[in-house]
């Protein structure tokens, strides 16, 4: 097979685990392998590691260690937050109304859907503007007597837009509504100071910030009760059963620590690469439009729509040219649905089938960006001609 370049521009999907994180994880497979819940010395050594990890994360979050719950990832954290709050309200005899945006990750929107369909909760989906930003007045208006929880994503995965969380959290608190945010994309790049943000619940996922896949965490403000989704042993103060995945929890904490310690360097690099990419695409690729907020967006995130070009086709062509990217409407099984996020932002169905997301990382170089821009221009032109035939 001919030698191909290999350029990874899908960091929002997943990131390589930092070698320093892998190193930090290693002792916990074959040397410190005890079950952290065991009372013997093997267990205690492992327990110390996860509690150190918990402390580290709490420090970054500016919260109490007891407010951190370890999960198997971001999806589980989202599920625990929303279902946990909803069930808890139901148990206390409240009927329950839920609020989300149309730009949430599936782990939030499907959980809400399920609660509505199976358990009769009512819900409201807020309005967003063409950048995907939530309307504060719409949020305020939508809160009802029986609203239990609002879940508003910190930074959107498809278009990179960052929500004004602090303002939104204030509104929620004035009206006594729990405020959860899915910070899966945001963590590693955006401030996570919980006190400053004012949120009650916050989800993160390690593999988005150069940690391993399969581990995440949920911040739960002291005093908030959640009915567990996963029952069993009394781990995590009875909030989430299951033997702790020691190496991965250690890995997550290390990755988060590195991300925030080194944030100045990394963020500057992401912004430089991303801006170079955006400038290049908008000036050289025909019929390209930037989606999401032009300024209030994740430093690593670029997203576009290309008039008349089908996302799946574009991704295949890019892949064969050695460029890995993704799209909100892409479908491995050839049955693409227009991106719900773009539709909610006011784009047409056709536009919503032609989106492309490119997210840079620590290893991305200027050469990578330039090659990508050139290749994109070529491929888009070629596909545009095909479509006319």
């Amino acid at each position, binding site marked *: *097979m*001919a030698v191909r370049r290999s350029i990874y521009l899908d960091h929002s999907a997943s990131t390589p685990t930092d070698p320093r994180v892998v190193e930090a994880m290693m002792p916990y497979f074959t040397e410190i392998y005890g079950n952290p819940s065991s009372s013997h010395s093997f267990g205690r050594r492992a327990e110390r590691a996860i509690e150190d990890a918990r402390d580290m994360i709490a420090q970054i979050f500016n919260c109490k260690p007891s407010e951190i719950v370890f999960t198997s990832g971001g999806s589980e954290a989202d599920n625990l937050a929303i279902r946990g709050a909803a069930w808890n309200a139901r148990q206390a005899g409240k009927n329950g109304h839920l609020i989300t945006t149309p730009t949430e990750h599936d782990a939030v929107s499907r959980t809400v859907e399920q609660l509505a369909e199976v358990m009769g909760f009512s819900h409201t989906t807020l309005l967003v503007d063409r950048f995907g930003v939530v309307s504060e007045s719409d949020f305020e208006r939508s809160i009802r007597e029986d609203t239990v929880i609002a879940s508003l994503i910190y930074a959107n995965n498809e278009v990179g837009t960052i929500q004004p969380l602090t303002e939104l959290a204030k509104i929620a608190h004035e009206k006594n509504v729990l405020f959860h945010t899915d910070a899966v994309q945001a963590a590693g790049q955006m401030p996570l100071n919980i006190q400053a943000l004012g949120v009650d619940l916050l989800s993160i996922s390690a593999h988005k910030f150069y940690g391993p896949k399969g581990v995440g965490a949920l911040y739960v403000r002291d005093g908030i009760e959640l009915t567990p989704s996963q029952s069993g042993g009394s781990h995590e103060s009875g909030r989430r059963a299951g033997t702790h995945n020691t190496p991965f929890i250690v890995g997550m904490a290390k990755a988060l620590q590195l991300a925030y310690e080194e944030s100045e360097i990394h963020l500057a690099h992401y912004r430089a690469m991303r801006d170079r990419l955006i400038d290049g695409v908008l000036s050289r690729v025909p019929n390209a439009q930037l989606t999401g907020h032009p300024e209030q967006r994740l430093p690593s995130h670029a997203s576009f729509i290309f008039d008349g070009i*089908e996302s*799946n*086709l574009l991704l*295949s*062509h890019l*892949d*064969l040219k050695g460029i890995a990217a993704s799209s909100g409407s892409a*479908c*491995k*099984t*050839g*049955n*693409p649905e227009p991106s719900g996020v773009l539709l909610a932002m006011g784009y047409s169905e056709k536009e919503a089938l032609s989106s492309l997301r490119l997210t840079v990382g620590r290893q991305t170089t200027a050469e990578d960006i330039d090659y990508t821009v050139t290749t994109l221009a070529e491929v888009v032109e*070629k*596909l545009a001609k*095909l479509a006319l*035939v």
Partner: protein
Amino acid sequence: MSNADTRVVVAMSGGVDSSVAAALLVEQGYDVVGMMMRLWSEETIGGRVNNRCCTPDQMADARRIADKLDIPFYVLDTKDVFREKIVEFFIDQHRQGVTPNPCMECNRHIRFDWLQGHALALDAEYLATGHYARIDRDENGQFLLKKGVDESKDQSYVLSVMGQEQLRHAMFPVGEHPKSEVRKIAEKFGLPTASKKDSQDLCFLGDGDYRRFLNVYAPEVMAAGPIVRKTGEVIGEHQGLANYTIGQRKGLGIYAPEPLYVIGMNPYRNALVVGTADELGATALIAKRVNWVSGETPSEPFRAEVKIRYKAMAIPAWVEPVGDDEFRVEFDEPVRDITPGQGAVIYNGDTCLGGGIIQRQN
């Protein structure tokens, strides 16, 4: 240019033939890319039945084979063009009382037009499929379409719609091997589908039941109507024209002194026309929508062997081109089952010269 510099897109279905085609090309050192078409699926119209092709299972099989062969694999959304050109065509033909061959249409419009275009756009030189046929060149460099080495499994019939440009950019790797070898090759490569049965039905029918399908999408062709003789005399009732084929004798539900066969359909009256064995046979047919593989209409009538159905034997006949889009076939002996809508495909030994769609007996 070495094989490594030559990109070939293989149309994969998850079945044995296309999997082996891909494996052979990988073995020969080509730059292979696997692609699968997501075709129209009944479920998208609200029915319950899943079509046989491109189910998530099939796609998972194809993907697994691509992984094993270490080749990229992409799925193309072909739903709209397939529904428009094949499914609606199928329904429409039945409405006209004609028995279509959608596989030929698919090769004409989808595989070696739409899909081949996409393959070339991916910088591929060729689109390869698992079809059991061969491509050769004559002394003038003209592309020839030939039967697969195992005549009984030959699929050149449905490929008779291809011309020079299509053949130039096509490959049929399995056609060079005896059919019995193909499964052995699959096993040799450790391909997970080696034991999968070959499918025979129309790919967009979930359960192979075209009657149920027509009942849903074109109920009028499943409506009962009169069975008549050529004279117009009504002698019985049929259960929907689409249930019958030319030459059919059983299942007509009529009592007559001599055996009667379906000899035609009249969609305007929704009538099934039956007749005796003499009325059934004909010595000639007219075909239109003609394709000559060479790209040139022969200037004079010539001798050849003609297949009037995919599964029929090739019968000796005279072929007479009439203009560029029509030809007449005159058989040495009367032939039964000449069915409008089916392909009349012309052979010279094991070379397929092209064909057309049967319009009527003559």
